[in-house]
């Protein structure tokens, strides 16, 4: 190639030329782009949902509580003193004492088992100190604190009410793996669809390729429009995927907001945003290029003028 300007001009010509060809077969290229769009929209939706769930459950960590069940034989004065003592610790934000009597009343209020409870001679419920740890503690520090409190003489058992959050995180990790697996499969689908489409395009233009080779076109020159075609498909699919995701979000927005109001959480269903949109488009273009690159590598070399 002679100069940078000529190089740029060549690329522009190839890019615009292949776009022109695609627009001449609008229905067929539209359908290909739709297949790509759906294939890209599915993993994008899953990943977005995951992200939303994570951002919602993220602040639930701070809602952790440690329940200290007091051993039998510890008097009310003693455990009230313990509660006050614990409050002095820097890791503890506040404590709350639940006497057996209060616990029983609460239990009667919600369980509807007043009759059954009345049959009991004495109150079977142990006294309880609810410790609210300070918000800065992470999961590891919470575990350590729970262990320490469990060692206290007056405490029968200490339980961190974080287990279910941890379980949720474990489940999320599992789902995340699954989503990436599905995303990988759909990425392969995109590559194959583009590859096959480009293979057909090469077949349709066999005569043109032969003639341009005859008059001295380099392989790079012949390859270029097909690579751009793949990239255009990828971009089209990516744009479609972004629209599908945003459309889906718009349809779910009302119910999601109602739900978030009921639970008093922050806004549910964040959108793709600038970076998400960028990644969807970039993966579309990247996969489109990869597919066309594979097709071009396999099929162009076999076309030689005779």
């Amino acid at each position, binding site marked *: *190639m002679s100069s940078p300007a000529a190089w740029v001009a060549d690329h522009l010509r190839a890019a615009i030329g292949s776009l022109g060809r695609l627009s001449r077969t609008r229905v067929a290229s539209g359908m290909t782009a739709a297949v790509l769009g759906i294939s890209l929209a599915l993993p994008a939706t899953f990943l977005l949902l995951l992200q939303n769930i994570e951002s919602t459950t993220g602040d639930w960590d701070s809602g952790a509580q440690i329940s200290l069940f007091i051993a039998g034989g510890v008097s009310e004065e003693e455990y009230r003193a313990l509660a006050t003592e614990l409050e002095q610790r820097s890791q503890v934000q506040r404590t709350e004492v639940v006497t057996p009597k209060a616990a029983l009343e609460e239990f009667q209020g919600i369980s509807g088992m007043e009759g059954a409870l009345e049959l009991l001679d004495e109150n079977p419920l142990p006294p309880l100190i609810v410790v609210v740890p300070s918000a800065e503690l992470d999961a590891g520090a919470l575990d350590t604190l729970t262990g320490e409190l469990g060692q206290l003489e007056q405490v029968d058992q200490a339980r961190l009410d974080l287990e279910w959050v941890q379980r949720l995180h474990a489940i999320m990790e599992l789902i995340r793996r699954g989503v990436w697996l599905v995303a990988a499969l759909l990425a392969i689908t995109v590559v194959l669809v583009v590859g096959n489409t480009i293979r057909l395009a090469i077949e349709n233009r066999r005569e043109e390729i032969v003639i341009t080779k005859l*008059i001295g*076109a*380099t392989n790079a020159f012949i390859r270029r429009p097909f690579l751009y075609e793949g990239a255009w498909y990828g971009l089209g699919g990516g744009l479609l995927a972004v629209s599908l995701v945003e459309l889906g979000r718009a349809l779910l927005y009302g119910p999601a907001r109602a739900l978030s109001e009921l639970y008093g959480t922050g806004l549910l269903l964040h959108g793709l945003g600038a970076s998400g949109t960028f990644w969807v488009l970039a993966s579309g273009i990247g996969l489109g290029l990869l597919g066309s690159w594979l097709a071009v590598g396999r099929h162009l070399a076999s076309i030689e003028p005779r």
Partner: protein
Amino acid sequence: MIRFEQVSKRYPGGHQALSGLSFTVSRGEMVFLTGHSGAGKSTLLKLIPLLERPTNGQVIVAGINLSQLGQRRIPFLRRRIGMIFQDHRLLHDRTVFDNVALPLVISGLPHREIGKRVRAALDKVGLLARERVYPITLSGGEQQRVGIARAVVTRPPILLADEPTGNLDPALSEEIMRLFEQFNRVGMTTLIASHDLVLINRLQQRHLVLTEGRLVEDRPAGASA
């Protein structure tokens, strides 16, 4: 400009297309290549832009020994050779202008320069008024002239034509051959395969005769049959 040294070509399957061919075409010469169909004219022409490679012997074009030319350099060799085919080999989904412009686009010429050169080439073959039409709407002779314009638009030092008048009537054939003479006169080394002996004899150019892949006669310019 073009030198063949003991060139043989055997196709896979055993057909011996050329055997022990040696000749030289000097810079600026115009040479006709004749012989019956299957005598090896097309094969000989295909060896020059490396559409085929010889089984034995050497082909030297513009000082380059083609047996030492790597695959990646072939496009640049072909850009220096204008080729004309009996079946024109035009792109039917592009206009006459775009067809003729293709070699310049491939060479990466600036847009403005392309327009100028394409019109000059079309003017020379008398088709300037038809630049916007599609080749399919042209007659056979006109399509061949588009092919010629495409071959000469880059002003290549070498011009090769394989049966350029094969499907044309005598008057049109002569017109085409006169066109080649004009290009030859401005310095293009021209090699034309044809079996139109009457016309060739009238043009009084150098004339190679092939029979079954062998060179049987090398008649210098000016000698008549």
